[in-house]
């Protein structure tokens, strides 16, 4: 429901760009980690950022928050250039980058208090509020080094909320969480977006991204290979599932059609890589060749299969 609300809200704000990267490139020696990245992220969006390990996701996020200096290109957020207006931008951004990192000798509360002092203008009530939000208030006085990985993740999210950010960047926020914790965070993200915040979510869990995100960019070897709304991206993976009496013959006929990208056969069905709008056309071609369709349906795709197809990765529901 929250996702739907968020999607509705997104439509209202579609034109306001919160973050824009222009020709963003990062080279480490001879290796190009990120190549000419052009992204636009709009207000209220939950933007998924996917890619296999070493594809340049973390480098991109690092450049967006100013931890990594781009070799070329620029980052603009809230209408300002990051290099020229670092603090004006960063004070409006909450980010958890890669693994959670806090001072182990301090408690969860003290860690947040420390960050509050550094940021300035954050009342103690806000610390309590964000800890409550991630269900960590009862363990707030425990030392950080005693926290489980899931608790560390939740503290990282709490710290990203301290400055009441308009843009939240979450890099693998569900790593190490148990199923209950995972669900909490999965519910928290759309609710944050529902508060008129923009969220960039880097996650290995494709199912999670599919459930939460409005739009997705897939990056491979430093290049964005897809950047679409979730609907469009999933539609790319849709197949027409056709049942006929003579699938072999039907396959031969359809393969002659240049506009059909791919045809495979599975469980007695033909799987045709073509948009659903072409269903009638396919049916007609087959009928003209005396092959009659007994079943024709659209086989939905999921993000995982689209991701695998685009990146050519081998995964078990996770990107690496």
């Amino acid at each position, binding site marked *: 429901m929250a996702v739907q609300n968020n999607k509705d809200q997104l439509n209202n704000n579609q034109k306001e760009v919160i973050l824009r990267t222009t020709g963003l490139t990062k080279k480490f020696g001879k290796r190009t980690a990120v190549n000419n990245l052009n992204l636009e992220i709009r207000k209220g969006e939950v933007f998924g950022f996917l890619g296999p390990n070493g594809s340049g996701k973390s480098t991109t996020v690092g450049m967006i*928050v100013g931890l990594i200096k781009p070799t070329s290109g620029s980052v603009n957020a809230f209408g300002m250039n990051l290099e020229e207006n670092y*603090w004006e931008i960063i004070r409006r951004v909450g980010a958890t980058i*890669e693994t959670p990192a806090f001072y182990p000798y301090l408690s969860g509360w003290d860690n947040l*208090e420390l*960050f509050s002092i550094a940021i300035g203008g954050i009342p103690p009530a806000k610390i309590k509020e964000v800890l409550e939000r991630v269900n960590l208030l009862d363990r707030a006085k425990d030392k950080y080094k005693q926290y489980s990985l899931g608790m560390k993740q939740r503290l990282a999210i709490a710290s990203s909320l301290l400055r009441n950010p308009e843009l939240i960047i979450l890099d693998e926020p569900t790593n190490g969480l148990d199923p209950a914790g995972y669900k909490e965070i999965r519910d928290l993200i759309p609710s944050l977006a529902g508060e008129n915040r923009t969220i960039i979510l880097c996650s290995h869990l494709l199912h999670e991204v599919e459930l939460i995100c409005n739009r997705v960019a897939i990056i491979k070897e430093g290049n964005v290979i897809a950047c679409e709304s979730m609907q469009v991206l999933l539609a790319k993976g849709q197949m027409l599932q056709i049942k006929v009496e003579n699938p072999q013959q039907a396959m031969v006929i359809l393969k002659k059609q240049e506009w059909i990208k791919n045809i495979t056969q599975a469980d007695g069905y033909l799987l045709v890589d073509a948009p659903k709008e072409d269903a009638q056309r396919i049916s007609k071609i087959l009928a003209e060749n005396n092959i009659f369709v007994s079943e024709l349906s659209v086989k939905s795709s999921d993000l995982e299969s689209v991701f695998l197809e685009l990146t050519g990765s081998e995964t078990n529901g996770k990107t690496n």
Partner: protein
Amino acid sequence: MARLIRAEIYKLSKRSMTYILLLILIGLFALILLITQATTPTATTVTNGITTTAPAVAANVQFLQGVVTSSIAMLGGIIGVVLAVVLVANGMGSEYGWNTIRPYLLCSESRSKMFASKLIADAIFIVAGMIICVITVILLGVLFTAIRGYSWNLGASTLSFTGSQLLDFTRAFYVILPYALLAFLFTVLGRSTATGIGFGIGASVIELIVTGLLASAHGWLAKIPNYMLSINVSKITSLSGTSGGVTISGGPNTPIASSLHAFIVVAVYCVVFTALSYIIFLRRDVTG
């Protein structure tokens, strides 16, 4: 900037390492004082058949003055330097070790301000540690004097004496600085506490050896020690009249440098170490 200094002070004040270093400092000084007390020769006088034993340094005033003077000198010596190096290297190295450099930078107005706030907070803690140590030493001195059966005397706090001790205290802090900044430089360079402490102290030791070797050289080589750190630090510490550590001097062919020269050379080292650390810290990417 003030916020970041506060944050740095918060970090250091909540860390047990800070107090362990302070305890080590105080403990070492107490031990030295105790040994000095135990080994101080006593003078025995017999008046009208009554034997009286007094410290060789007869007046309590002189004893207390000696305690303060030598403790300040020792602060600028090897003990103070090593502990300051550990404090500074730990403060920065831990940020890399725990990866807290990433979230902390995102809470900092700029890298320059974070850099400056770290150094300022370290300096505050070094000075605070030195003050606490001197106060402890004075209290122990008074205690030992009282144990010996003499009333303690604050004659040591005359204006001229206090003034000269403040100057010595400043000198002690000044000679700690280049070593602490060198450790900071290596910590930033190697992104680790161990590198900072290891290379910070190691480089100082190597420099001592090189200075020693060059001291016996001739010609222009003999002039080099005058531009090295250890010999100039030694020159500054010797101004107090009490050396806190090993006194380093040039060879017979090394021209004797002035105090002003020594101050300038140490200042140049401090500026160079700070500038190099700053450039590296500012330019380098912060990656996981």
